[in-house]
């Protein structure tokens, strides 16, 4: 039977298109419009050309200084968080049971932090870290460390990093576990016949087989931590000083605190460009990983 090409189904996408236009494209256009103008309220706008971008990209100006400071801060945060969560996730996944009741148990326990709303995670750690009524803060202080995340930038960073590790290592662990489960037993049997050590098995079998999942986990965690807002906002509010003011917090201060719409628009567009590029890399890696796997599956 000859197949008649019919693309009319595409019209079914129109409602989604309309909703996206309303909720995303129109606001995005408005942000672009704001980014080249200045306003003092009352819907009066004045042309500023690329002035805000010039200020934004010049670290010597107030706006540029704030932007680059929060950008480096955010990149450092993402780097630290990745450096902890990826190895930790691998170790947890390797330690998880392969069969029996322990599988379901550990999966549920690992999924718990992922189910808690971000706001609540922030609140939990905000209270947990307090030195007067918080269990952790009180205990650490009683052990003789002068820990106070409200006043000391390093303590604030430690709190936020530990919180993020607590919140998101499970995701990495679950992804790695899925990668490990997909390795056929034959590989392990071959390794044991060869007398391979535990480390050799990890290096030659488990790590290569987890490569794709790890790339996905790393990119996912990078994007999430690069866009982090709620948890540090709840725990430290960006302080002490500006020490935990990440880009999204800086952006909200600029847009909704100072109502500098032009500056905020320019900053959010540059921010969005970075996110778009990372998203594109993420998407490309994901789709190509899928194709490779399909290709490998097709071979005899």
């Amino acid at each position, binding site marked *: 039977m000859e197949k008649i090409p019919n693309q009319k189904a595409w019209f079914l996408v129109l409602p989604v298109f309309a909703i996206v236009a309303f909720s995303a494209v129109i606001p995005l256009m408005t942000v672009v419009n704001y980014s080249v103008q200045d*306003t003092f309220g009352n819907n009066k706008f004045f042309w500023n050309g690329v002035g805000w971008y010039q200020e934004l990209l010049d670290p010597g100006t107030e706006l540029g200084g704030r932007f680059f400071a929060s950008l480096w801060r955010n990149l450092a945060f993402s780097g630290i968080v990745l450096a902890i969560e990826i190895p930790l996730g691998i170790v947890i996944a390797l330690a998880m049971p392969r069969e029996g009741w322990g599988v379901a148990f550990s999966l549920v326990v690992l999924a718990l932090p992922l189910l808690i709303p971000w706001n609540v995670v922030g609140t939990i750690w905000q209270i947990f870290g307090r030195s007067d009524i918080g269990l952790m803060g009180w205990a650490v202080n009683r052990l003789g460390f002068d820990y106070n995340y409200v006043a000391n930038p390093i303590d604030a960073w430690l709190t936020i990093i530990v919180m993020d590790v607590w919140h998101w290592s499970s995701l990495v662990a679950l992804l790695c576990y899925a990668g490990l489960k997909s390795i056929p037993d034959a590989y392990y049997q071959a390794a044991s016949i060869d007398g391979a050590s535990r480390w050799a098995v990890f290096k030659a079998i488990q790590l290569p087989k987890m490569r794709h999942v790890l790339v996905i986990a790393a990119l996912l965690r990078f994007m999430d931590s690069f866009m982090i807002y709620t948890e540090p906002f709840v725990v430290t509010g960006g302080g002490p000083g500006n020490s935990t003011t990440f880009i999204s917090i800086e952006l909200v201060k600029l847009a909704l605190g100072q109502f500098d719409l032009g500056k905020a628009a320019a900053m959010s567009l540059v921010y969005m460009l970075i996110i778009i*590029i990372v998203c594109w890399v993420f998407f490309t890696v994901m789709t190509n990983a899928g194709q490779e796997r399909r290709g490998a599956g097709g071979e005899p």
Partner: protein
Amino acid sequence: MEGIAWMAWTPVTAALFVAVALALGAMSWFALARPQPERVGILGIATTRGDRLFLSLVLAAVIHLAWIGLIGTAPIAALPIGEGIEISSLWLATAISLVAAVVVFRVV
């Protein structure tokens, strides 16, 4: 126009979005009229024409921002119209972006 005053349209940004919309429309028509299969370029990934347009636009944004940040927007020439219309050096970034777009469409 009162209803969309909050969107703060300017002729320049309007022209930008009209251009992007036209490019998307033209590419859609082109894809239907002259379908072209995916092809693997120097990035080692399969790309369609739409992917290449996307890459060109992102690259153009990066080139313009890099130009503003690293070189600036000092005027390079003035058109002898009226009091003289200054031409920003940012147009050089636009020219580079166009060249980059051509390169992307050919090799990626």
